[in-house]
């Protein structure tokens, strides 16, 4: 394995490709959190009164909470008084009306990240709602979508334009008091995306958001809310990259999904936040609460995630299966390298009858990284004939990394059927030799083996996203794997 190890080291030493900083003026509030800061954020967003009240309620509750310590991750204490809770790119008072009005430097940043923000997105069939730091700077395809009655807009706009929907659904899946980070988010969230698909409408394109942390020491607190009304269908893509920083940056987002009767929501994430350098300096703390509620009968929520970034990932996209015959799915690839730590997994809560859930988790660890799968499957007493299938596979590259699995299973109904499979393996020297002997170099061989390992998850991603995810995995593997 000596050659394999040296390649692992090389990969580990590769620099973060997306580490550049856009130099634009920002409009920030001073660091630290108080009711005044929350009032400033709310005022800057021109929010209705109910929104401010909700934020303040969350803030007051947050002050009584303690940061959780149960996750299998280690980091120095976060000083919440040093974080800047609001930062927006300066712009004309009324905001940009078209791409021409958007700060060219912003567009340049996206260009480097290879995001087709401009109309070429049309070719890819993707509508992009780009979140730069905290404010959405451009939204495309709005017109086309609004013809179908679909609402796809920045969260702050939804608060102003569609307060009834916000009032009805905000916090209905992740209550303001849910957990430390979600509650913090509820108090200070600045922007994010809002999607509403009306009854019986199948959204004709993949909806896509690109988050990016830019200003130094800016915690980013996005909030996403997606509602699929009865019989609706939507596929939503979220991609993240962040520029290089020496300080750790907190990223505490909340995503809520609501699927009414016969509705389907597919939520795919490719996450490539800055993971820190090879010594574990810098990097994003990604403490995210993602949860979906299959509220109506026959509804379906599917989470697919490819996580290669962040210094620390703390994330459990979950499904509450309330409606009868509802389906929850979780497909995940979590790749960690160097000193990265990931504690990720899912919760499937079966409440309705004949509810089904599938969990496929693929963890890849390289360098000195630690990868934890943490999952919970709960079958409530009323959930007759519930079924769960769980498969957790871990792949280790090198001998300094770790993989951990914590599956929790709680069954209160004896008609339930549960399956749990788990494997842990290393890339074998024999597999590498086999590939090498057929003419593939070490890096291609590793990439092929890892991609093969992840195949079951990749095929759940929309086509163009799958290609990007594979490329990202290759970049993350480079220098990290032999």
């Amino acid at each position, binding site marked *: 394995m000596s050659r394999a190890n040296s390649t692992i080291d090389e990969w580990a030493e590769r620099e973060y490709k997306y580490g550049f900083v856009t130099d634009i003026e920002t409009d920030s509030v001073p660091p630290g959190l108080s009711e005044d800061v929350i009032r400033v954020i709310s005022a800057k967003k021109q929010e209705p009164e109910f929104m401010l009240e909700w934020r303040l309620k969350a803030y007051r509750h947050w002050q009584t909470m303690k940061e959780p310590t149960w996750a299998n991750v280690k980091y120095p204490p976060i000083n919440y008084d040093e974080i800047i809770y609001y930062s927006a790119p300066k712009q004309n008072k009324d905001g940009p009306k078209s791409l021409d009005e958007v700060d060219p430097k912003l567009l340049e940043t996206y260009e480097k990240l290879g995001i087709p923000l401009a109309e070429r997105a049309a070719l890819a069939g993707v509508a992009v709602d780009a979140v730069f730091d905290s404010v959405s700077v451009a939204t495309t395809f709005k017109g086309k979508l609004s013809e179908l009655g679909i609402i796809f807009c920045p969260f702050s706009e939804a608060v102003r334009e569609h307060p009834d929907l916000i009032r009805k659904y905000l916090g209905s899946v992740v209550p303001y008091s849910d957990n430390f980070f979600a509650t913090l988010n509820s108090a200070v969230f600045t922007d994010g995306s809002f999607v509403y698909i009306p009854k019986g409408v199948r959204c004709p394109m993949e909806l896509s958001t690109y988050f990016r942390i830019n200003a130094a020491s800016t915690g980013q607190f996005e909030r996403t809310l997606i509602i699929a009304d009865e019989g609706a269908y939507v596929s939503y893509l979220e991609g993240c990259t962040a520029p290089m920083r020496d300080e750790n940056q907190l990223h505490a987002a909340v995503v809520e999904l609501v699927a009414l009767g016969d509705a389907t929501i597919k939520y795919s994430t490719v996450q490539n936040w800055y993971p820190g350098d090879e010594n574990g300096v810098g990097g994003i703390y990604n403490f995210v609460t993602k949860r979906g509620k299959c509220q109506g009968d026959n509804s379906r929520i599917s989470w697919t995630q490819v996580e290669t970034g962040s210094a620390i990932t703390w994330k459990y996209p979950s499904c509450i299966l309330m409606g009868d015959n509802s389906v929850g799915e979780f497909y995940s690839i979590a790749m960690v390298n160097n000193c990265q730590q990931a504690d990720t997994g899912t919760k499937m809560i079966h409440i309705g009858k004949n509810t089904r859930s599938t969990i496929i988790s693929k963890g890849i660890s390289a360098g000195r990284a630690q990868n934890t799968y943490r999952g919970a499957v709960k079958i409530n007493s009323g959930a007759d004939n519930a079924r769960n299938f769980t498969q957790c596979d871990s792949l280790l590259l090198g001998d300094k990394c770790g993989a951990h699995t914590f599956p929790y299973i709680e069954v209160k109904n004896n008609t339930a059927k549960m399956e749990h499979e788990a494997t842990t393996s290393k890339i074998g020297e024999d597999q590498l030799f086999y590939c090498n002997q057929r003419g593939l*170099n070490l890096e291609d061989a590793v990439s092929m083996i890892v991609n*093969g390992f992840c195949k079951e998850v990749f095929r759940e991603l929309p086509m163009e996203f799958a290609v990007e995810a594979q490329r990202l995995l290759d970049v993350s593997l480079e220098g990290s794997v032999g």
Partner: protein
Amino acid sequence: MLEIRNLHAHVEGNEILKGINLTVNAGEVHTIMGPNGSGKSTLAQVLAGRDTYEVTEGEVTYCGEDLIELSCDARARKGIFLAFQYPVEIPGVSTNYFLRAALNSIRKEQGLDDLDAVDFLQLVKQKAKLVEMDGSLLKRSINEGFSGGEKKRNEIFQMAVLDPKLAILDETDSGLDIDALRIVSNGINKIRGADRAIILVTHYQRLLNYVVPDFVHVLVGGRIVKSGGKELALELEESGYAAIEKAAEQAATVAS
């Protein structure tokens, strides 16, 4: 094509090959026979460039180049193919996908363009016939859930597609029933040619009923102790390795 001079190789501090001498020319088929643990598979893997083995002494020249200096994948791209004794499973990677990547890396070395999917499939279809291989196997993950015979056939099939100059077959006949043995042997015979050399590593004479070698070498204790024509294999079948081993021991004692 291949010139091995006084080759010594270690694995984990144990010397396995203790001075191999062998010359293989294009167009020839050489068989290497010997008892268990004599170093046959080690020789095959050392030639392929497996880095768990350390070459401590000697020279290997391949088509005029110093083979020892080349990495395993570089050797493969220059036309060395090893059919594995125990073919490896790679979950999630189909044989077709794998083989196309392999073929294109070899073509790149030769200055040729990548073969596109259509041409590749045509080539694959034709070669699969050679070993009577079911096309559906090629869409499955490499060797995953394959029977022993299917795995060995897959090796010969890959060899046919990659079209090597020097093919080394490591106990490709072991574990095959009589029908599979015939199919595999046919495959080998079909790729025999004037510009290709084949080294067959085997325990048994029975493969040689189907693939008739030009030379037979007996490997005992890390050295080639006897070489001859195809009749040597028959001789071995009758007298067993014991007699040769004994003779080799005596020779070694005398030499020291």
